[in-house]
């Protein structure tokens, strides 16, 4: 909820632990002692492939349930919300950007952004204007084109516009530059960070790319967050 009090952190994790059902003997996939992101703060979380970075993001978004611990997004205990309430809360407060963008095929760039607003409290009559404004701001002119007809860079911008459509408190970026060459990767991060800064959204970016480190004032490692 974007309108939450400014002193409430965008993200506050404590004692979060997760492992897949039936894998009790294999230790925790996610084991985070604590992590806090203030409003507008940008944090890079690094770690090797397969250590559970993406799983942590899904836990934060409420797409998975932890075994123990607590995740507060904009002051709300995400996992205390159930069913429709949690989905609604996620749609309104969290924006997600994926490595492969995960844009909806068969939908135009404009519809991809408008789809994000369908599940929010933003009045339907404002969806189109808001989506057009965002896409225009991010340099997308061919709004009626399907994502497959856009360049990779443009697809990335559509994905960013979609993540920002509901003015989220927190943006979760999962390896957002992994499919881009170094030059485009820098441009993409510039865009994501810039938009988040502009909109006042906190950004938690997970990546195993060491070249990203210089772009973030605060950096955390996955191992460093472990409770043990």
């Amino acid at each position: 909820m974007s309108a939450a009090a400014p002193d409430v952190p965008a993200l506050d994790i404590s004692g979060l632990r997760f492992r897949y059902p039936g894998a009790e003997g294999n230790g925790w996939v996610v084991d985070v002692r604590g992590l806090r992101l203030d409003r507008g703060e940008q944090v890079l979380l690094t770690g090797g492939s397969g250590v559970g970075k993406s799983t942590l993001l899904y836990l934060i978004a409420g797409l998975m349930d932890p075994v123990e611990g607590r995740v507060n997004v904009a002051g709300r205990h995400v996992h205390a919300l159930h069913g429709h309430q949690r989905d609604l809360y996620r749609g309104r407060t969290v924006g997600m950007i994926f490595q492969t963008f995960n844009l909806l095929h068969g939908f135009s760039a404009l519809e991809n952004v408008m789809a994000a607003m369908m599940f929010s409290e933003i009045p339907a009559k404002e969806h189109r204007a808001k989506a057009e404004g965002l896409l225009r701001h991010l340099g997308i002119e061919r709004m009626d084109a399907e994502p497959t007809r856009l360049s990779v860079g443009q697809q990335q911008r559509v994905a960013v516009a979609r993540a920002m459509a509901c003015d989220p408190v927190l943006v979760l970026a999962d390896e957002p530059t992994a499919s881009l060459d170094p030059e485009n990767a820098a441009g993409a991060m510039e865009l994501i960070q810039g938009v988040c800064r502009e909109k006042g959204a906190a950004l938690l970016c997970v990546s195993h790319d060491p070249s990203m480190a210089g772009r973030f004032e605060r950096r955390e490692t996955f191992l460093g967050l472990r409770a043990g």
Partner: protein
Amino acid sequence: MTDFTIILRSLRARLFSTVVTAITVAVAVGLMLVLLSMSDAGRQAFNQGTGNMHLLVSRDASPMVAILNGVFYANPPQRPIMWEKYQEIAANPLLEWAIPTQQGDSYEGFPVLATLPEFFTKFTPNENEPWKLREGRFIRGAKDPLPAGEKGPDRPDAYAYEVVLGSAAAKGTGLKVGDEIFLTHGINASRQLGAPQEEAPHVHKDFSYRVVGILMPTGSAHDRALFTHLDGAWVLHAHDRRKDADESVTKTTLADIEPGDRKITGIYLRVLTRAGAQGSASLPVVYDQLRRDSSITVAQPKQQIDTLFRIVGNIDSIFVALAAAVMLSSGIGIMLAMYNSMNERRRQVAVLRVLGCSRGRVFGLILTESAMIGVIGAVAGAGLAVVGGFLVAGVLKEQIGLSVTPVFSAPAIMTVVLATVALAAVAGVIPAILAYRTPVANNLRPIG
């Protein structure tokens, strides 16, 4: 952007599958509606032909056989009614008219009905729809002169050898007004004037008939018949009788007809009614009077057709059950199409979930999409049924003279359409459950 947009985009993304599945549904719905409509239309078609007749008298084995033979020309009646019996029946003061008919001859497989001119002036094949001519005129009576300007044989008995063609008979034989033909005894192929005689056994080759008229279609079995004057039919059979006795006989005329030649096979009866009314209080009385005569069979056409449809109704039910089975299989088709699409749409479902779409809404989207295929198929099927029904009816009328007008009642169409949509929605339940249970995280990961 609405849920409907998502559904339409999804249907469009799988256009081939959507179209094929919808066509399957459309065919099933069309079949069901045509069968339902034809069931009523069939009854109507059978009611045509009996027209304004109240009773049919014959000497067939049962009233049902009497109707099938006397009105629908199923077979020529085997047992004749003597003319004296006809006169006795026709003298009943409660009768408005009694028209004698005789069957037994044919032309190229089309039955010949020998009767009197009153057949065309008093009897109507459909209620309130008198006979209409496409060309020429009706048969005339013994005292009616040849119409002015018409060329024809200058003989006093020429009226007895005139023939009027039902529309289907005209089409089937290719005859036109002015043609001359020979009739065949029994239902065998007969031939046109000039054809080799050995090809047509039992041909009344000494008497040629002249085509004087062609009727407009009536939608009844009468369209397949040829109509001649009763006097001619009696002469033909008097001639056969005389030749059997004396092979040297070459000519027979009206004067040679003996009482034993005056045979008919049926009597169309109408009881006195008040003007404009179809029913008559006298009908049960006359019916009862006639039934007391054990030498004849009396049939009430409408009653017999009802009986016939009670028998045929079971077959109707089987057809409708088959159509329902086809509909059910089309529902399974929808389910399979939706189920098979689930693999490719798991990512879409996962993305929608990330954007805030609830599991319940995902369930509803899939269910509605499935129902949409039902809607498209049902509407197309209803259109198909209406167009197809009338096309089939046109062909039936054109080819066999049976007028089957499909009866599409709005409640029946609505019921079938709603049932189809409900079936399609039910077919979407399993795919919708799969979508509901789609694990989001697994389906957001990069492919490969």
